């Protein structure tokens, strides 16, 4: 079950106003920037849209950075911002259908390559499941995955189990 209503803080604890804060933010986001590219790649196929969304995630995380209080890892927080930005971005149907036809440059032609097949299999999962399995493969713990996705730990465990079954099935079908 998704977590019930959580109060939204009314104000940022502090706003990023000076150069020092900017530099702190830049160095932290650059250390973890793979997260942004990974999430965007998992959800968006069109290269232009990918670029725009990467920029949007940078801006969203920049504007929210003042609220990051260090309770969780920065990477966990960035995963959540990236996922939320991607999920709240909803393309119009026509563009979505067009984008589905676009060739993914990340995916190579050799269909028997395990890496490509794993990537393709993950992209075939439901949106939330894609992030759950990729977080699991990145060694994130169940509580951290729950925090990022807004699901309970039990639900994460159930979903993860099904994701693994689905992935294994998809990989067996392609090999």
């Amino acid at each position, binding site marked *: *079950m*998704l*977590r019930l*209503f*959580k109060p*939204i*803080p*009314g104000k*940022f604890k502090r706003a990023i106003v000076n150069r020092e804060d*900017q530099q702190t*933010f*830049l160095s932290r986001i*650059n250390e973890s*920037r*793979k997260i*942004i*590219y*990974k999430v965007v*790649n998992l959800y968006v196929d069109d290269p232009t849209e990918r670029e*725009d*969304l*990467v*920029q*949007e995630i*940078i*801006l*969203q*995380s*920049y*504007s*929210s950075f003042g*609220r*990051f209080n260090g309770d969780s890892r920065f990477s966990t*927080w960035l995963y*959540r*911002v990236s*996922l*939320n*930005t991607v*999920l*709240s*971005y*909803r393309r119009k149907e026509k563009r979505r259908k067009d984008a589905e036809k676009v060739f993914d440059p*990340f995916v190579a032609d050799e269909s028997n390559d*395990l*890496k490509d097949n*794993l*990537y393709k299999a993950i992209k075939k999962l*439901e*949106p*939330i*499941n894609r992030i759950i399995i*990729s977080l699991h*493969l*990145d*060694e994130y713990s169940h509580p951290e995955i729950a925090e990022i996705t*807004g699901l309970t730990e039990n639900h994460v465990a159930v*979903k993860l189990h099904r994701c*693994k079954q689905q*992935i294994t099935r998809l990989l067996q079908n392609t090999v």
Partner: protein
Amino acid sequence: MKDLKDIWAEMDHSFEGPEIKLKQLELKSQVETPLTKMRSNFRMNLVLAGISTLIMGSLFILVDGFWFRILMGTILVGYAAIIWQTTYLYNRYLKNLYPDEDIKSYLQGLHKSIKEGLRYQELIAIFFYPVSLAAGYFLSLYERGEADSFFTEPFLWGLLLVVIIVLTPLLYLLSRWMYNVSFRSYLNRIEETLNELEKENQNEN
């Protein structure tokens, strides 16, 4: 078969994108999400409501007519309520898009509150359209010096009644159209996103 985590780790370098530069923090967003579109439409609504209030406030002060002031005062109170509610919804949900909150709860709250809030404004407006029309009508009567004869001339009564009967539905339809253009498609897109998230849960339960 190789362990999935090992395969995934081998792919890790593929996600290494270009370094993020300082100037990127100063760029404007190019992405249009339902949230960013609604945010800009809310801002536009607030600006227009502010301008309208200023114009109506000026008329309230400048036009010396009892009935006009009663009617215009009523409209100003209604506008103040609408501006207050719009500002509240904007500050609560759109001023800062909360990208690090639980997205489903956030979108559910936003969708429900904005849809109900705008519906509420629409219903209030049904009452205010005749008042606004009457205020405009009285303004023209005061301008021509005929306001005093309004209560003794059945023709002037009848004319006001016709104006209200004809224009109120038109104004209501116009406001519905403006609502559809400004908000409905974005609220629908948020609803679709919520349905998708909900469907995923149902599929697995």
